[in-house]
């Protein structure tokens, strides 16, 4: 990720002479603006390229955090059973019943906006999907002969989980995580659009859309390009997810639950 090599301009550089330059034209200060400039004369293409870094940083970190938490909880629920299973799954139900945006509003409203809190919120609202899928798959894998064999050899539970269960769950996890990245990027952009996400000083697609929204009646390009970038990214990731799902199909037991993601 080296946006400074790709971007033609500094994304924060304000050139008031070159404000609102339409795309594919030369700005008042003589520079060429491929995708135009915004209300402060900042180059939109450069901001898009830097915004991609913000989106992917938050998307991947949130998925990593949610995936780790959800997977560990799902594994322990399935392997332990009993009260632990019950408690974890009810917690997951609770999370699914609580609309994401309301969770975000609670946490951001109190902790304040910022990249770290944003990652936390997105992860907090996604772990249940991983927990559910991992639990469903583990319940089936737990009964397989090779797990029974490992258990009869007296291997410690942790080793069984890591060596024999986890590798067999990973296919479904990959699928969930792929859709998760797309969802996290959309969530980040949505919150930034509302002004509850990334601070204005950092270029982000959601923030750019929010600014562009104000000028939509005359300067369409401010809002058009960041939205298109977001749409294409999310679409691409979802297509990869669909392809992964189809590729892993013979191994997926929780296919029905994945289909609803």
């Amino acid at each position: 990720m080296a946006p400074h090599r790709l971007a033609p301009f500094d994304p924060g550089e304000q050139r008031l002479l070159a404000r609102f330059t339409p795309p594919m034209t030369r700005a008042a200060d003589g520079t060429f603006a491929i995708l135009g400039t915004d209300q402060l004369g900042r180059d939109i293409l450069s901001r898009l390229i830097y915004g991609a870094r913000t989106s992917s940083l938050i998307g991947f970190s949130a998925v990593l955090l949610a995936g780790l938490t959800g997977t560990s909880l799902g594994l322990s629920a399935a392997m332990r059973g009993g009260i632990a299973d019950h408690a974890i799954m009810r917690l997951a139900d609770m999370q699914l019943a609580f609309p994401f945006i309301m969770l975000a509003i609670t946490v951001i409203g109190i902790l304040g906006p910022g990249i770290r809190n944003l990652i936390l919120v997105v992860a907090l609202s996604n772990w249940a999907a991983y927990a559910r899928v991992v639990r469903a798959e583990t319940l089936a894998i737990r009964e397989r002969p090779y797990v029974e064999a490992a258990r009869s050899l007296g291997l410690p539970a942790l080793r069984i989980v890591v060596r024999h269960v986890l590798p067999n769950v990973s296919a479904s996890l990959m699928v969930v995580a792929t859709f998760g990245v797309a969802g996290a990027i959309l969530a980040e952009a949505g919150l930034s659009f509302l002004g509850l996400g990334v601070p204005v000083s950092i270029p982000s697609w959601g923030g750019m859309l929010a600014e562009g929204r104000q000028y939509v009646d005359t300067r369409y390009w401010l809002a058009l390009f960041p939205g298109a970038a977001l749409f294409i990214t999310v679409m691409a990731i979802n297509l990869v997810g669909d392809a992964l799902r189809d590729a892993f199909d013979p191994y997926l037991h929780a296919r029905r639950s994945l289909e609803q993601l």
Partner: protein
Amino acid sequence: MIVYLCKRLAWTMLVLLGITAVVFVVIHASGDPAALYMGPEGTKQDYEILRSALGFDRPLPEQYGLFLWRAAHGDFGRSLRHQQPALPMVLSRLPATFRLASAAMILALLLALPLGILSALYRRSLLDTGGMMLALTGQCMPTFWLGILLILVFAVQFRWFPVYGGEGWGALVLPAITLGVWAMARTARITRSSMLDVLPSEYLRTARAKGASEWAVVLRHALRNGAIPIATAFGLELGNLLGGAVITEAVFAYPGIGRLAVEAVINKDVPMVQAVVLTVAATVLLLNVLLDAVYVVLDPRVRLA
């Protein structure tokens, strides 16, 4: 049936209790709420007065009990910004959001069901591919961008609808489409896959054999049996719909509960945030209980356990 609904209601209350606990803990874990209410310019003396007036000097479990007691009586405190009780303000905004969400929902169902059913019936046809491409596009489309594009085309270019704000039904059209597209996309995909599961069933062959028309076979026999997954997905969609409403309201400057919530967060208006979050959570949970009742009507085979 009654027992079942009571059980569901009890579970819902438990979830709601969990949510109040989360909200309460988050508020208290993030620092001194009295300091938050006061802002940086308050004096030490004012701070002490406010702290005891709001009850923040008492032990935490007692505070939580008090919070629950007040919340149960509809008292979430006064909005810091508007200096009015928070809950009535939230409730006064609720009808506008309901109007938006139900318009979007009806729109989504009207499009998604036929699209899903036809795609499943004519599987691998041009209609199926096109319809599912449309659904995928709708699913990947960021709500706020779709809203902006619709404004660009229908409000700025054609001037058919107001750019934002406005009164009456005209002002509802673009927001409802914006919000409805996402729910439509997912519902269409699930309708299709659910119908594909049901279509090869024996009872459909029986229905055809006894001479039922193809319409009756599809609508009365297939759709009814495929309806449960569709209803489930739609129930999960309710929460997303309200979330999407927050963003849609921001795009169109539509005066609903979402804008109230965002303003409350930006103004650090904690009582208002609490009131909005708990009202919305309670609404979503209640709607889901209602949906469970609908299941039983849709499909008597649902076990009432």
